[in-house]
């Protein structure tokens, strides 16, 4: 990313340092979209490398890629589809958590929708692993839940 000699903020870049010690550059206008980063800039100044303890070198480039497109107004449905196409469910989860930490609203909302879409057709056991929880129902409670499902949505097949 070329740095211009002029002092106008629109072309200024900010340095971000991930939790695992790598440094990435981002345009100041893109950094503005991530409220956590902007708050750190306000506190520490824009000449210092901003530390992001909870974001790592695996996901930050993808986030930067998204906001590069955002500041030029190029985010389309096609771009968003392409953006998540090759990501598996865990990778999306990690990005979602990072967007949440960075308070990057647009990306956060887009990824929430993507996670909700991915959950739509998954089995209960899969969702348990995804959320990292165990089944803590008693057998009676489980059979009650199955009954409820049976009479409430006719015509839609039980998937397990």
């Amino acid at each position: 990313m070329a740095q211009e000699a002029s002092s106008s903020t629109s072309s200024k870049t900010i340095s971000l340092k991930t939790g695992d010690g790598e440094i990435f550059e981002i345009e100041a206008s893109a950094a503005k979209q991530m409220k956590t980063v902007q708050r750190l800039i306000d506190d520490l100044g824009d000449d210092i490398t901003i530390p992001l303890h909870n974001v790592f070198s695996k996901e930050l480039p993808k986030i930067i890629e998204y906001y590069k497109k955002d500041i030029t107004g190029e985010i389309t449905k096609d771009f968003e589809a392409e953006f998540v196409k090759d990501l598996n469910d865990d990778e999306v989860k990690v990005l979602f958590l990072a967007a949440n930490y960075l308070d990057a609203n647009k990306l956060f909302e887009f990824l929430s929708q993507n996670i909700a879409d991915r959950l739509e057709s998954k089995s209960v056991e899969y969702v348990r692993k995804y959320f990292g929880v165990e089944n803590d129902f008693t057998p009676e409670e489980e059979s009650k839940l199955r009954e409820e499902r049976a009479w409430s949505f006719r015509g839609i097949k039980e998937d397990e």
Partner: protein
Amino acid sequence: MKKIETSSKISLLNLPESTLDVILELLSPIELINMSKVCTYLRGKCRSDHLWDNHMKHKWGRVFGHFAFKEWQWHVTIITKEEGSVLNQQINILNGSLGSFSGSWPMLCVGSYLEECHNFKSLLLANHFMMALYLSLESGKFWFPAQLYRGLYVHDALVSYNSITDTFRARTRSWNGRIVGNDIHWDKLRFSPVETSSCVRHVSDCFQELKPGDHIEIQWRGNTQAPYEWFADWWYAVIGHLDSCNENENYCLCQNSETLVVEFKQYPQRSSMRKAKLTRHTEDSAGNYGGIRKLHSQEEIQKWNELLDHQRYI
């Protein structure tokens, strides 16, 4: 709630509730039910009234209105009372719950009917009102009050949803509950705008102020109307001018007259069916006309005008 280690260190459930809610709000009703099978914590989250209220508004808002909701509250009260209480005896042998009653025998009308109401007991006792309501509608077990469009009038009925065909069945509100329609599409229904009963003449509150140009709906029964349902049909009309009036806005005194002219635009100007003359302050239910409801909503008026245009070309 027990958490297990996963490959990524942070679990989604470690997030503040409001963050998890963002995802839950995007889930479909079926998925919410599936999610409640994951663990006890998610069961609680996925049954919250807030989530199901969104789905209620989104899917049922156009056909399920305020008065239908009051009927639901009535059933909730009955179902959640203790066994053996007086109210509980409203649940008949078929395990259904009768809604509110109006009129007197034999002109007796039921406000709604909830089949197999025991299904909802545990959800209601746990205060999951909106979820129970949504499921009662989706499963077709709740026969709720709504109005059916039929040509240029609407008909009061109780309707039940069929999720397999995505259509409704309709019954009369009178005690015999005769079926009056099957495979009714969503666009032929609307929610009941007044607390009407097809057995009791609607008490109008707008007689005093009606003036030429006002849009109304008026109850009317034909002589061949089925017994016990004398006030089930509402016809669209416009308040017209008296014959003696020259229809000049500045000199029109029709509003002060005891006679109210109701004009049915689907008939040609010279037809005897076009205008009906009623007495403004009577509660006489011997005639064929019943109560009047003044229309305020542009949407309602527009819908009637579209139906009128359609009628004219047939």
